[in-house]
């Protein structure tokens, strides 16, 4: 029941966003605030883990085990320009380095595209784990 109410609240919140967004080019910040207030403040452990792991991941090759889409998205948000999320997801070392050297960017388009595909495939990011391709999508 709790989950149902929560989902309903989220969907309603997003519906508000859509209605508002289609009506104009502005957004009601109170609705954003309400949505954030309805959320559970995530434990910092996952974020801390992601940020603390970032340097190590930058030099490590792909490690075994399942990858958390949320960690990948957070890394993409904050360190996407450095390709850290690619190292986290696992890729060939040279691919990762090539990515950093050529297609990174703090607010570059590549992290944005990666972010979109990770968000779209949030429930199953297996296609991007240990993906040796230069463009993972």
């Amino acid at each position, binding site marked *: 029941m709790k989950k149902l109410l929560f989902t309903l609240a989220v969907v309603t919140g997003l519906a508000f966003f859509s209605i508002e967004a289609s009506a104009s080019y502005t957004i009601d910040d109170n609705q954003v605030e309400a949505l954030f207030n309805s959320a559970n403040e995530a434990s910092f452990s996952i974020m801390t883990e992601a940020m603390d792991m970032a*340097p190590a991941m930058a030099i490590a090759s792909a490690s075994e085990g399942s990858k958390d889409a949320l960690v990948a998205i957070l890394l993409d948000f904050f360190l996407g320009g450095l390709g850290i999320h690619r190292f986290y997801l696992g890729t060939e070392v040279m691919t990762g380095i090539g990515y950093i050297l050529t297609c990174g*960017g703090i607010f570059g388009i590549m992290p944005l595209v990666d972010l979109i595909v990770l968000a779209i495939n949030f429930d199953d990011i297996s296609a991007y784990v240990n993906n040796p391709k230069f463009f993972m999508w």
Partner: protein
Amino acid sequence: MPVRNHLFIFFLIICLPFTINSQAYKGKVSVNTTHQIYKKGQLFTVLSTTLYDGSTGSITCHYTSPTEFYKTINTKGETTIYFPKRNEVSFSQNSQYGSDSELLYYFVNNFTQNLGLEKEGFIRNEAKTEGKYYITTWLAPPGVKPVHTVKLVFENFLPIYAEYQDLSGKALKKIYYYEYHHANYFSLPKKITEISYSSENDSTVKRTSFSNIQTGMYLEDARFNFQIPEDAIKLDL
């Protein structure tokens, strides 16, 4: 004094302020930043302070929560990330993505006409007015698969909305720039909310809020004066 000289001085006085304003901002700007990311009912909050130095073009970010680290980036794309707790430092260089790729750079220097899209290879396709709004449409360069078009909306010469669309015109991402802070030389949105759509009923919402915006030629802020110890562990990217 001949009339010609009077006219010359007159035009000089008129034109000088415009010349000064058209140059990049040479002072310093510091802001406190709160990043909030909402995804699947969970909210992540990250706090940082950022210093932009107009004389060098470098940007220093001091992330304080949930974990502390520093990130500096200059116009050449030389990036340093330093984790004081772990005493680890990494260096990287990418000439295509320097501090002039940062959003703060565009706003502080009034380069808001395309918010960096042109630099990313986007080509302007259309420009029109819609009531009080001025709208430009940009076509993505080949190879950027999911994104096909970006729509930028301006009000009073300031960007207020950006929409990334796929080939079918479906919105992939919407960005709202609002609650502008007007400084002497530039305007900066105090809030930027991004909604990335992943499916019909799901999205990621990120809001970046700037506060305590300080500007000045001689702005000193001890928060950004950090030294990387000589014994820091270097991580090669």
